[in-house]
């Protein structure tokens, strides 16, 4: 075996360009997969790390289900059995305004009871004498910043920073810096510590708390403590371990991350085809060699292992290089992923790039498994060749694979795929949907050989008038079906996935555009500058709404207030808005029923409207009653309607603002939607609004057009990662075609030689190769368009629906057909370029004597 491997495998593997192409392809596929894994893990671990840093030694947290709660509860918690220490906490996410470099950043302010903190969190404070810490920090507006943050923005001890708290500017004095590990690492350093009394005062939470941290006795089991505590604090509070917060985020990001992983698997999938194809071709190409070896007494099994090992060698080297490339790729991808997650779900602290050593083994492992799987069949083929058969020359026609068999297999797989797509969601994992998508790809791969034959037959009469290169290329295409088949299949798969994802994104975008057009009717939207940042708790100035109403040209103003509640132990958004104004000037797109009617009922009867995503998340239906936690205890409301909405924050509940004001005793607003009288100029009104509140209060006023554009801009940015992954898959597929064509040249050296000998010019040889590539591209493209049709249906109505809960309108844009055709043709021609050049430069004499 050793000799065979050294003399034969190595010489074959590394002498020819195709081995390198295969390696690059496999390495790229693995690297994409690995880099997505690294990015996903880094994002989660960054979040977890931040949560751990904030939690310190905390074993349990108490939070109010309806938001901030009365601080008096702390006494009864402190006296509960099993509780050792108790720390009251105030927290807020505050948009920063100065120094100017901080603009757009969020500072997480944490108000703590300094006397309790020692047991909970690790404070390593610099820039201040230890004995002065207490007295200095007790001063109003005194804060500790983290050293990384201060360094980043060149803030020194004694300096000040400005943030927006509620609807006011707040100037904070830096009295010291947090260093080392622990708290300083929370929120990527964007954290400030304040004394709890000043925090309560400055954040309008006098007498209230956001959270209570507990450390429990080690002797007593946690669940027992939780049980007695839960009874003591009652149903308006939630009790959980700090880790549960990370778990919640993991759960929230699960579908998103799974989606990315699935996308990254595309390249891996194409890589599998690449190895499979390389080895299969190798077997065909080396038939003679196999025959000679067999006649020299080498056993079937050794031939089998020879080829298997070749595949595994490719996989191993591909895996190692894949990890190396992946580590580089991951940096860029991590940035994109973190940005998307922050924009859509939760703010992710600047994620330190972590490269766990396990990833290295994972990459090699994937490489080897992928290689072993994909080389199994070719190796078996090699083992089964009979010596005589193997030594036959080029005229022993390869028997054409049976078309019927392929069609039957495709039909069967197609049916199974369809059935799988009908299986409902299980364990929060659209496994059946993904499986159906995988089967669909295999189904269409099975259709490649029949499609190839049909294509060859159909174009034959068309080529009559064209130069002979077109007919020669057609002949090659058909003749080398076994080699071209898998290549076209891989190309088709990559293209189909690309097209279907494009169709999904386009459908999604169209849906969003339609939704925006039908539901965003306000002429001007006014909000704090931090409107688009998820966690910002900024509110509008008091009295703004009545003042706006008095501006000439303004017809109506809808005030919008959102509060965080814990619905069924999960964070959820409750919105109070002026539904009467909304009904009169705008609308919700309800799943069923008339918008005006439903909204009017909601005002009259005090019912709740929920978004589709929210309904899917908790399995709710129209007419059901839900219990929403409030400062007055649980309130039970009937669901009057379920409306479409395309946000990623888990959906929302909407009630009339008067209800929210009454029960929450909350008059504040986050956003105002301003409707203008007919004929008044939004630009002019906006100018007035900006002059009054813009500079001083830091509010922004966006006209309808700009608001819509902003939503779409964020939408487009979200899909950057997706597009990046798609492109890599196409590159891998391109390598596949190049590879196949190179082999094709190798195998046809003699034919090319003959062509030259009987009068073909170099150009004509180039043409033949390029046209064959073009044919492959066209077949792959046509099949991929059909495959994408089904795949996109699956993506939109099964996978996406199950993962995210949106109903999207299906739209297969005709432009996709044109674009994909251009892409496929270009890719194919690009792939054919180097092989064609090689073919043209072949020494004719050597080619002819080649046997």
């Amino acid at each position: 075996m050793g000799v065979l491997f050294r003399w034969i495998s190595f010489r074959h593997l590394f002498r020819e360009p195709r081995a390198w192409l295969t390696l690059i392809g496999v390495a790229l596929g693995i690297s994409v997969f690995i880099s997505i894994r690294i990015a996903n893990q880094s994002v989660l671990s960054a979040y977890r790390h931040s949560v751990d840093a904030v939690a310190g030694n905390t074993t349990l947290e108490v939070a109010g289900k309806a938001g901030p709660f009365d601080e008096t509860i702390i006494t009864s918690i402190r006296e509960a059995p099993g509780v050792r220490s108790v720390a009251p906490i105030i927290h807020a996410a505050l948009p920063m305004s100065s120094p100017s470099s901080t603009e757009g950043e969020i500072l997480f302010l944490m108000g703590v009871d300094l006397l309790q903190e020692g047991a909970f969190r690790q404070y390593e404070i610099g820039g201040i004498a230890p004995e002065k810490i207490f007295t200095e920090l007790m001063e109003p507006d005194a804060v500790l910043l983290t050293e990384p943050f201060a360094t980043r923005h060149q803030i020194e001890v004694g300096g000040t920073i400005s943030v927006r708290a509620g609807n006011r500017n707040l100037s904070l004095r830096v009295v010291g810096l947090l260093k080392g590990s622990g708290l300083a690492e929370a929120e990527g350093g964007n954290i400030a510590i304040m004394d709890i009394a000043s925090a309560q005062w400055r954040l309008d939470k006098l007498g209230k708390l956001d959270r209570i941290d507990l450390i429990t006795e080690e002797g007593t089991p946690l669940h027992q403590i939780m049980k007695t505590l839960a009874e003591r604090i009652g149903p308006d509070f939630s009790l959980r371990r700090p880790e549960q917060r990370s778990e919640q985020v993991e759960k929230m990001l699960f579908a998103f991350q799974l989606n990315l992983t699935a996308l990254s698997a595309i390249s891996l999938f194409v890589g599998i085809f690449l190895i499979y194809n390389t080895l299969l071709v190798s077997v065909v190409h080396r038939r003679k060699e196999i025959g000679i070896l067999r006649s020299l007494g080498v056993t079937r099994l050794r031939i089998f292992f020879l080829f298997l090992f070749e595949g595994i060698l490719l996989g191993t080297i591909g895996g190692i290089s894949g990890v190396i490339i992946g580590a580089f790729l991951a940096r860029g991808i991590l940035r994109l992923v973190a940005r998307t997650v922050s924009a859509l779900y939760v703010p992710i602290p600047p994620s330190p790039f972590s490269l766990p050593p396990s990833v290295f083994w994972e990459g090699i492992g994937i490489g080897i498994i992928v290689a072993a799987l994909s080389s199994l069949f070719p190796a078996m083929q090699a083992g089964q060749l009979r010596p005589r058969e193997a030594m036959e020359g080029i005229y022993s026609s390869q028997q054409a694979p049976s078309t019927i068999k392929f069609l039957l297999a495709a039909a069967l797989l197609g049916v199974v795929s369809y059935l799988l797509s009908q299986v409902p969601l299980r364990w929060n994992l659209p496994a059946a949907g993904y499986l159906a998508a995988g089967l669909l790809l295999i189904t269409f791969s099975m259709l490649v050989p029949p499609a190839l034959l049909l294509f060859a037959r159909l174009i034959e009469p068309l080529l009559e008038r064209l130069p002979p290169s077109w007919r020669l290329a057609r002949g090659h295409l058909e003749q080398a079906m076994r080699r071209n088949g898998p290549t076209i299949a891989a190309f088709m798969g990559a293209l189909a996935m690309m097209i279907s994802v494009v169709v999904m994104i386009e459908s999604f975008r169209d849906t969003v555009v339609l939704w925006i057009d039908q539901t965003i009717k306000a002429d001007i939207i006014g909000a704090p500058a931090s409107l688009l940042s998820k966690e910002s708790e900024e509110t509008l100035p008091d009295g703004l709404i009545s003042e706006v109403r008095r501006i000439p040209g303004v017809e109506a103003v809808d005030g919008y207030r959102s509060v965080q509640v814990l619905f069924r132990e999960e964070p959820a958004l409750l919105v109070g808005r002026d539904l009467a104004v909304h009904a009169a000037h705008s609308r919700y797109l309800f799943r069923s029923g008339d918008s005006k009617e439903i909204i009017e009922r909601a005002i009259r009867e005090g019912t709740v409207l929920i978004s589709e995503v929210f309904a899917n998340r908790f399995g709710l239906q129209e007419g059901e009653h839900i219990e929403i936690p409030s400062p007055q205890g649980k309130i039970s409301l009937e669901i009057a309607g379920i409306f479409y909405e395309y946000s990623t924050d888990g959906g929302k509940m909407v009630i009339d603002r008067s209800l929210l004001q009454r029960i929450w005793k909350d008059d504040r607003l986050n956003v105002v939607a301003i409707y203008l009288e007919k004929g008044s100029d939004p630009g002019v009104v906006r100018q007035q609004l900006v002059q009054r509140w813009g500079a001083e209060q830091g509010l922004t006023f966006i006209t309808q057009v700009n608001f819509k554009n902003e939503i779409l801009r964020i939408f487009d940015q979200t899909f950057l990662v997706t597009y990046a992954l798609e492109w890599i898959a196409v590159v891998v597929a391109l390598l596949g075609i190049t590879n196949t064509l190179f082999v094709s040249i190798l195998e046809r050296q003699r034919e090319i030689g003959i062509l030259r000998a009987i009068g073909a010019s170099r150009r004509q040889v180039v043409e033949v190769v390029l046209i064959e590539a073009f044919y492959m591209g066209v077949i792959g493209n046509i099949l991929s368009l059909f495959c994408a049709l089904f795949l996109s249906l699956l993506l939109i109505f099964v996978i996406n629906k199950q993962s995210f809960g949106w109903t999207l309108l299906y739209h297969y844009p005709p432009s996709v057909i044109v674009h994909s055709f251009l892409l496929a043709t270009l890719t194919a021609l690009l792939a054919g370029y180097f092989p064609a050049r090689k073919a043209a430069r072949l020494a004719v004499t050597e080619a002819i004597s080649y046997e």
Partner: protein
Amino acid sequence: MIELNEIDKTYPHPVHPVAALKGITLRIEKGSFSLLMGPSGCGKSTLLNLIGGLDQPTSGDLLLGGRPTRDFSDADWTRLRQTEIGMIFQFFNLLPMLNALENVALPLLLRGDRPEEAKARARTALVSVGLGGRLDHRPSALSGGEMQRVAIARADVVSPQILLADEPTGNLDSENGEEILKLLSSRARAGVTLLLATHSPQAVPYADQVIHLKDGRVDRIDRIDRIDRTGGKR
């Protein structure tokens, strides 16, 4: 007429360059039938390939019909092969995915003849080699002798002035070989300059002259009397 003056051909190799032809000087008359004979490795194929322009000599001059070929470009050689030189090889060398008719029509199509015209001429050429009934058969459905006849038709279809054949009977039994030789010699009688490399003495009776090569040099040239030839086997 083919003229070779002091032709050398050395195959480069970093350690062992091979001098395949050394100072070959030859004149081959228009319309003559010459055999190239000699032991394996003496340079027969190399010489034919040079004349067909598939490879270039290391030094020396090759003249075709009085024209020096020294400055011919690849495109010039291609044009020459499309119109004046036909080549035939030992391993038939048909394109497996084309049928007999297409194989023969190909050189005409490659040089830009109209498809109908090319097909018609190819049909005539195949009929003339006795394969009028096998037009739409692929090479895999033909016997060795039949394949070689297709190859001859393909070389002949462009009406070349020179036919170069490298061991065309090498893979055939003597009976089929005889058939092929008859076909080729009939081309020579029609005025084509025919140069045939072979190991088989079977061909001698058909030829005008036998050029014996040895170690890349012309060893000797045997001229065969025309009377002798016509008086020989038929």
